[in-house]
């Protein structure tokens, strides 16, 4: 066999593996789309392809508000995610900037403390967070969710700090000689240079409320009207609802997965720069 033929065979093999991987990766996606269009209800059906196709699941998802109100959940989640995205991004970026650019006596110990706190399992303090919110009468409100999602931001600065570390300090010094204050350096020099990491932070913090189904459930209890989509969809799969709601769950899943996936793919570049930039340069 010639070298060329050998290379061709190797490439063919690689393509074969990639195709198999793609099928495996997209299989659940295809299946949930098919389920969302399925005419017959119920969670387990003996066929992979539905016997009849319909858009009713989507229509009922939004129009039938007798038990659950998906439209309301969607609005709730949008409000919470926009608010917490703004607040969390501000918190993460400012903490990261401070840890990267400013020197003060508590800096090292604060950074170590952030690492240590991160080693505790998050669910350990779940119930205590609930007690804290309850003692100030904030449970079952969207504000509580925004606070809970944003408050942890002060511990998630490491990736952004890694990015800021790569911006030459000489630029700060030059600005200082020109009489700029630290606040001016932050807003006029560092921030405009940090678009990738800011987009990355906005992206991840915006997505978080769409994915969390634990804290939101603990805080909202059985108040269905205050649910976010994640908790709501999760509730649709509990034992008493699953038979009627499974196909609607699939429709709802498609409804939130499509915008998030599109958003994610369009901003993919920043995401990759974010995680690799943060880890490559330490």
């Amino acid at each position: 066999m010639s070298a060329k033929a050998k290379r061709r065979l190797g490439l063919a093999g690689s393509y074969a593996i990639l195709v198999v991987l793609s099928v495996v990766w997209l299989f659940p996606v295809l299946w949930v789309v098919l389920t969302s269009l399925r005419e017959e209800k119920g969670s387990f059906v003996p066929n992979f392809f539905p016997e009849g196709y319909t858009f009713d699941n989507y229509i009922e998802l939004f129009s039938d508000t007798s038990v659950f109100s998906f439209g309301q959940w969607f609005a709730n989640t949008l409000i919470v995610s926009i608010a917490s995205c703004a607040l969390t991004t501000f918190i993460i970026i400012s903490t990261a900037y401070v840890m990267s650019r400013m020197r003060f006596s508590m800096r090292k110990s604060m950074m170590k403390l952030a690492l240590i706190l991160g080693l505790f399992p998050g669910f350990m303090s779940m119930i205590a967070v609930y007690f804290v919110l309850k003692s100030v009468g904030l449970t079952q409100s969207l504000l509580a969710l925004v606070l809970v999602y944003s408050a942890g931001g002060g511990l998630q600065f490491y990736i952004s700090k890694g990015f800021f570390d790569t911006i030459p300090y000489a630029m700060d010094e030059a600005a200082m000689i020109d009489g700029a204050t630290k606040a001016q350096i932050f807003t006029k020099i560092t921030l405009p240079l940090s678009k990738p990491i800011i987009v990355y932070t906005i992206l991840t913090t915006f997505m978080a409320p769409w994915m969390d189904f634990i804290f939101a459930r603990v805080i909202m209890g059985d108040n269905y009207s205050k649910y976010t989509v994640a908790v709501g969809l999760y509730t649709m799969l509990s034992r008493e609802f699953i038979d009627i709601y499974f196909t609607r769950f699939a429709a709802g899943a498609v409804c939130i997965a499509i915008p998030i996936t599109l958003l994610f793919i369009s901003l993919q570049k920043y995401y990759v720069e974010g995680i690799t930039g943060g880890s490559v340069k330490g």
Partner: protein
Amino acid sequence: MDTQKIKSDLPTRISYVILGYSNFARGQRMKGILWFLGELLYILFMIFLGIPALGGLITLGENEQGWVYDEALGINVRTEGDNSMLLLLYGVAVIMITAAFVFYYLAAQKSAREAQAEEERGRRLPGFREDMHSLLDKKFYITLLAIPVIGVVLFTILPLVYMVLISFTNYDSDHQPPGKLFDWVGFDNFSSMLFEGGTLSRSFFPILAWTLVWAVLATATSYIFGVLTAILINKKGIKFKPLWRTILITTIAIPQFVSLLIMRNMLNDYGAINELLLKFGIISERIGFLSDSTLAKITVLVVNLWVGIPYTMLITTGILLNIPQEQYEAATVDGASKFTMFRKITLPQILFVTTPYLITQFIGNINNFNIIYLLTDGGPLNSSYYYAGSTDLLVTWLYKLTANQRDYNIASTIGILVFIISAVISLLTYTRSKSYKEEGGYQ
């Protein structure tokens, strides 16, 4: 300027008791008044709320809720008892406020000494407006950190301290406030978890073992296969590279509770995969992907690949693109084989950059809640465990004990043990890793 060495004069000494006096006496009126106001607030708070709350922290309540005979009415009336949960919470809050005040006090002393030092040097002291301005300049960090610190203290540190204290109480399903009181029990929870050999330790050690096995295998497999996938996609001659990557990273974009619940449904005994396999005659009996305890462990590891490969693939791709091509060209000139180049150039670079990532992944997998909870919910249930199943990790066990059993004391004990394990592992690995040592010079 070393303010420590200056001998304190009278105003500075008065500042030990009356905060801000040194600033006030030297003309920084506003600053001095503010320091003092803070002190006054703290003292008033302690007298009216703080000290009683500390008493409650010690007793955790003495009067249980119950029925007491009321002579005037001639019937039993319900009396509100103490609420141990709230007493503990307030107690912790007071401790944290006191800790904050200690920092406040130290900062006030520093400010007092600085004012004295400036005066002795004959310099004019900065006025209030200049102090405010420095919050945007030299002390800009205080402005930026104020909100993050408050958030972390209220929603991370306070709850964490609270839960750590809970692990030294008997706050379990039998002692739920406000109906019942709970009390301090010392190290009882830890000893019954670790040493006494009851149901708790007979659950803890097997679950711990599975957690560690899971973390090692899950990290290793998704790392190795992720690196291989990245190399495969980046291979010369492969077309549509962005397309393949995009297909894989849809898993990151789709919420896990959607994709994993779908998987759970598909892998069920009566789910789509069993039906398909039966239909094509590949199997004659349904496979218990999630209902057989050994098979369920394999299933979660395999499904974890579906979630884990894309992340590693993304990071590795970034690294591969950053390796200078000249290195490979030089190696080719020297007659190195492809495998040698991989071993000597590609692999060391990947390993160097991804070591911290590997460690975070490992810790992340010890606490990997979503996969287990959504896919198997810890099941199949293991009757010899204390409310846990065969695939339960420590963290899902902790969650179940909190959410379903309300055995908060045991859940907290598990949380602390998980923390100790994670801390030891990260200390051992992280400080020894090459990238940490070389980063030392960077900071």
